């Protein structure tokens, strides 16, 4: 039994009626995670740009946080792809020999460009802080401080000029980068939509609306995750202040937090409406034109996947949080519930696109069901199972924890003011 080679996909695919012999769910949970994580990156960056480019001053604090958070999310956008490859050691090949008629070949270039923009924007925003740290740590003794100072010296890249003129240039550079970053972030994610939308063989995926739908839901999920993480961190800070006896300081933190959250919630609602409208347009158009594939698509959407699409995605993931956010007397608790549901809704959207697109056979005469592996019994069932997905979800928070030690994105008096 152990010597028998395992066909990729056979362990989690259940076939029903007539399916071609070679058809399996080849793109599983990690390909659900990929657009989800990329979307969070893009969304987090767009939120930070609302402040840097459009001067939404009330978003300042969450903007700095989401900029640094988008850096923590960035490597995690590529992680699911690595986990999904059958030949992970060849992962660099799309960069070495890109075949440009393929949408995936652009990934390396778009991803690198975007990473450079995020890194340099953070550098310009925090350069003054790095320089200050180098001088401040000089006074302190001890090896840890010396090492920390070394890190900051590297981070300054030798630029120690913190005169008013230089800081002005920094600020301008950050604004320009944020402005360039918006289309690049949209491109990074829109092109993830293009990867699916351009597969002409797949009746569910093929749609020119796919990239735009992906961008809108990306911004929704990115804003939601930033808001949620921000609330959790601020609540934790306020809690610590209160325990230390600083009830006044705790109240101050909470006041600032509420203001930012109510502003960010407005943007969230706007993008949510845009995302739902586009998805509805796509659905109505498919039903109205009723091409050859509509019979099987309808049986999947209104039948087999009804719970996933209409109850979990549109109902619980879109409609309920929409109501929770828009109804009067919104409390912080209600906001948190709404944000969690929004994140869940966008995840279900990715699931319904990626897994839903493989739920029916190319023959239009049969179905495939995806049974996600829970308890792994091999590397493959780990990578493409529940634990693989959880690994991907946990990584950005761990990375943020490390990055935030050197780039404090949550200081209430941070630069750029």
């Amino acid at each position, binding site marked *: 039994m152990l010597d*028998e*080679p*395992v*066909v*990729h*996909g*056979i362990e989690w695919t259940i076939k029903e*009626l*007539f399916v*071609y*012999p*070679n*058809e*399996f769910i*080849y*793109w599983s949970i990690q390909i659900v995670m990929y657009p989800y994580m990329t979307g969070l990156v893009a969304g987090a960056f767009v939120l930070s740009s609302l402040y840097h480019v459009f001067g939404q001053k009330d978003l300042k604090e969450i903007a700095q946080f989401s900029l640094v958070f988008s850096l923590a999310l960035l490597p995690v956008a590529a992680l699911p*792809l690595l986990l*999904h*490859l*059958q*030949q992970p050691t*060849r*992962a660099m*090949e*799309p960069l*070495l*020999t*890109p*075949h440009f*008629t*393929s*949408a*995936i*070949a652009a*990934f390396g270039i778009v991803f690198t460009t975007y990473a450079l923009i995020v890194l340099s924007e953070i550098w310009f925003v925090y350069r003054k802080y790095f320089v200050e740290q180098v001088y401040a740590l000089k006074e302190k003794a001890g090896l840890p401080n010396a090492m920390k100072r070394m890190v900051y010296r590297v981070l300054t890249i030798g630029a120690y000029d913190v005169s008013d003129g230089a800081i002005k240039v920094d600020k301008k550079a950050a604004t320009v980068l944020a402005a360039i970053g918006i289309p690049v972030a949209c491109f990074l994610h829109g092109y993830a939509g293009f*990867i699916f939308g*351009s*597969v*002409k*063989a*797949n009746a569910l995926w093929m749609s020119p609306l796919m990239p735009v739908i992906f961008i809108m839901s990306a911004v929704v999920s990115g804003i939601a995750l930033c808001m949620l993480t921000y609330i959790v961190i601020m609540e934790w800070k306020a809690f610590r202040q209160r325990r230390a006896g600083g009830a006044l300081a705790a109240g101050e933190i909470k006041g600032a937090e509420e203001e930012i959250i109510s502003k960010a919630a407005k943007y969230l609602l706007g993008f949510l409406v845009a995302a739902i409208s586009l998805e509805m347009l796509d659905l109505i158009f498919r039903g109205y034109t009723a091409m*050859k594939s509509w019979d099987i698509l309808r049986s999947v959407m209104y039948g087999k996947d009804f719970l996933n699409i209409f109850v979990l995605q549109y109902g619980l993931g879109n409609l309920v949080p929409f109501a929770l956010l828009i109804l009067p007397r919104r409390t912080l608790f209600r906001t948190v519930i709404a944000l969690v549901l929004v994140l869940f809704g966008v995840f279900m959207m990715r699931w319904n696109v990626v897994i839903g697109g493989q739920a029916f*056979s*190319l*023959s*239009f*005469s049969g179905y495939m069901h995806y049974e996600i592996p829970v308890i792994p019994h091999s590397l493959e069932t780990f990578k493409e199972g529940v634990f693989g997905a959880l690994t991907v979800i946990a990584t950005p928070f761990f990375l943020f924890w490390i990055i935030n030690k050197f780039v404090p994105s949550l200081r209430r008096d941070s630069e750029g003011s």
Partner: protein
Amino acid sequence: MTCSRRDFLKDTVSGSLVSALPLSAFTLISSAEAAAALDESKTRWAFLVDTTKCVGCGMCVKACKNENEIPYDAAVTRTWVERYVVTKDGTTHIDSPMGGRDGFIDDKIRDEEIEPEDIAKAFFVPKLCNQCDNPACVQVCPVGATYQTNDGIVLIDREWCIGCGYCVMACPYGVRFFHPEKKVADKCNFCYHRISNGMDPACVENCAFGARRIANLKDPDDPVAHLIRTERVSVLKDEYGTKPHVFYIGLDAEVR
């Protein structure tokens, strides 16, 4: 030695320019130019399937699995045979157990008994890679590991495939899969190693009924190419614009 920042930058720029100069001796050419630079091929491989002759014995699938070293008991296969049974009430029953490898010895289709008097028509349809002129799989490969030869066959470089599965998703015919041992994309190539050496593909050689035949469309004297030119043939799923090169005689409207 002192080196100001300005000097450093200057030297870096001039240094990289000098080192880049020999590279300018090379020119970038597109794949189309490369193909044109090579001799125009005198071959365009195509395939003719006469569904009226297929009895569903499965010898072609057996031969293919052995010839191309696809694990015999794995569910995936480079070629397969589908059985269609259309009953008088208009329902179409389709199956292909183990790709039809062991023939269709059971009357039941997915445990469903179909009475002979209820059957309106029934037939077999062999399937294999269509070696498309406009192959979607080649278009989407991010590393160029799958490519088209100048005689029309789409091949896979097992040393360069990263196993992303995009080609598997892009093929409208479902002919691609991951090789269970090699862990790279795999599919039928008309037995390229055989046809390039004057032999027939394994499935053609092992079809006792002449249902499968290989043709060189560019050879005016090729009898099979002559059949494709003069008979009423059709292809599968031409709506995808892939320009498939497996031609069928007697293809029913029910065939998916």
